[in-house]
């Protein structure tokens, strides 16, 4: 498979073969993390700009480490303290950065579609690092890499995605990606947090946690986004935790080889009991490790080949 895309904007765009290409490339990159000298010269002289309009530590750091291990120059641009506070438009800021000839712009924005807008206007490659409630493709790719690594394959697996699906770009990207890889996806959560048209994406919907997780090979718990819970979606956080939190007692009814995943940051004691987050079933830190590998793979595929 030869990578042909200029940008990585969504899992909805990608074909199964392209997803496999990214995962294979990322898998090969993992070895670099085990070296004494964690650096290869592949992207020497290339510039990666992290353009973050929304708070993020994990994703930004992950892209930064990925770029640096590949020898790219990585520049972090955060919206606070920048010209956007002086009234410059998003597109003008991005065009100014593009005029400095970066090779890749990694963008996170609160508005869905912001990376796609940039991709149309910028010469450089654009990577979506999360846009509103739309997509977060590199998260889905690192989740798929983690599952493939632990289970040996993707096709035929059952995955339960639990929590606030409505506001979750992680859920959306994973649903698109998993369906393409032949995974059966069940989404579960309170009816207020499951989009009504969810079935159109080809997923099963469940409103009982026990039912959703009983046969799952993988349980992906979503973060309850406190900042988005002011709209009366749930009676209270305590009530949500009691009904939808993954506890040790509930875990006992799951498959003995179940994997527990979470995109982070974890609200311990809300969606995930601390004992579950730290249990042998949890692969949350493997996800973080694989995040760097996936981002190295993506940066290599976008910037490593032909000079644009």
């Amino acid at each position, binding site marked *: 498979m*030869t*990578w042909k895309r200029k940008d990585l904007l969504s899992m909805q765009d990608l074909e199964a073969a392209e997803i496999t290409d990214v995962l*294979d*490339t990322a*898998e*090969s*990159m*993992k*070895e*670099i993390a085990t*070296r*004494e*000298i964690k*650096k*290869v*010269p*592949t992207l020497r002289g290339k510039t990666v700009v992290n353009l973050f309009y929304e708070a993020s530590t994990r994703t930004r750091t992950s892209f930064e480490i990925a770029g640096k291990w*590949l020898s790219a120059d990585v520049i972090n641009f955060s919206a606070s303290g920048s010209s956007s506070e002086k009234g410059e438009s998003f597109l003008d800021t991005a065009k100014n950065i593009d005029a400095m000839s970066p090779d890749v712009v990694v963008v996170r924005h609160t508005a869905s579609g912001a990376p796609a807008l940039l991709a149309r206007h910028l010469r450089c490659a654009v990577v979506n690092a999360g846009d509103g409630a739309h997509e977060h493709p590199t998260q889905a790719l690192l989740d798929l890499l983690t599952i493939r690594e632990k289970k040996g394959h993707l096709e035929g697996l059952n995955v339960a995605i639990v929590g606030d699906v409505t506001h979750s770009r992680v859920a959306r990207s994973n649903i698109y990606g998993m369906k393409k890889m032949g995974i059966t996806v069940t989404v579960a959560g309170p009816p207020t947090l499951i989009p009504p048209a969810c079935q159109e994406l080809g997923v099963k919907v469940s409103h009982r946690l026990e039912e959703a997780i009983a046969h799952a090979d993988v349980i992906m718990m979503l973060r309850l986004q406190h900042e988005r819970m002011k709209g009366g979606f749930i009676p209270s956080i305590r009530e949500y935790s009691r009904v939808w939190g993954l506890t040790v007692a509930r875990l006992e009814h799951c498959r003995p080889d179940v994997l527990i995943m979470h995109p982070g940051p974890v609200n311990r004691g809300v969606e995930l009991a601390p004992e579950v987050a730290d249990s042998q079933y949890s692969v949350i830190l493997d996800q973080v490790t694989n995040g760097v590998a996936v981002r190295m*793979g993506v940066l*290599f*595929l976008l910037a*490593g*080949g*032909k*000079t644009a």
Partner: protein
Amino acid sequence: MSAYREKAQVLDEAGLDRALTRIAHEIVEQAEGVEHVALVGIKTRGVTLAQRITQKIAAIEGTKPSVGALDITLYRDDLGLKAEQPQVRTTEISFPIKGRIVILVDDVLFTGRTIRAAMDALMDFGRPRIIRLAVLVDRGHRELPIRPDYIGKNLPTSRRETVAVMLKEHDGIDRVVIQEPTD
């Protein structure tokens, strides 16, 4: 991409095996044993050749040297020039190379650029005492000052020809042929 046709067979199965046997003996002789020797094959066929040479050394000396695999994609100097993005594969060097005599193994030595990349990659794993180079075929046309230490077959070629090394593990047969373009 233009098609190629076979021009001549250079090595058959027995010839290829004899060449590897000789290389194994030369490695052992020059290193005065195998205590500090490690072989690192360059993906893909170099790895297979390194494994075969390792087996032969084990048969001669009774101890088997460490053997690793190196993928040089991330060290290439032509990434921006190639039309197609090469596939990155995994490097597996699970032993320390510091202080070792590392024998790099590849199937065909041509411009020398792959070996340059392999040496850079190797240095990132530590500081070997010596790096030596073993190749099954040296076809000439060097673009860098690189010289092999162990050669299976010296093979003068023209630039438009290619040398195809076929190994049982990958191609179902052991042989080396020269190919020329059909047009």
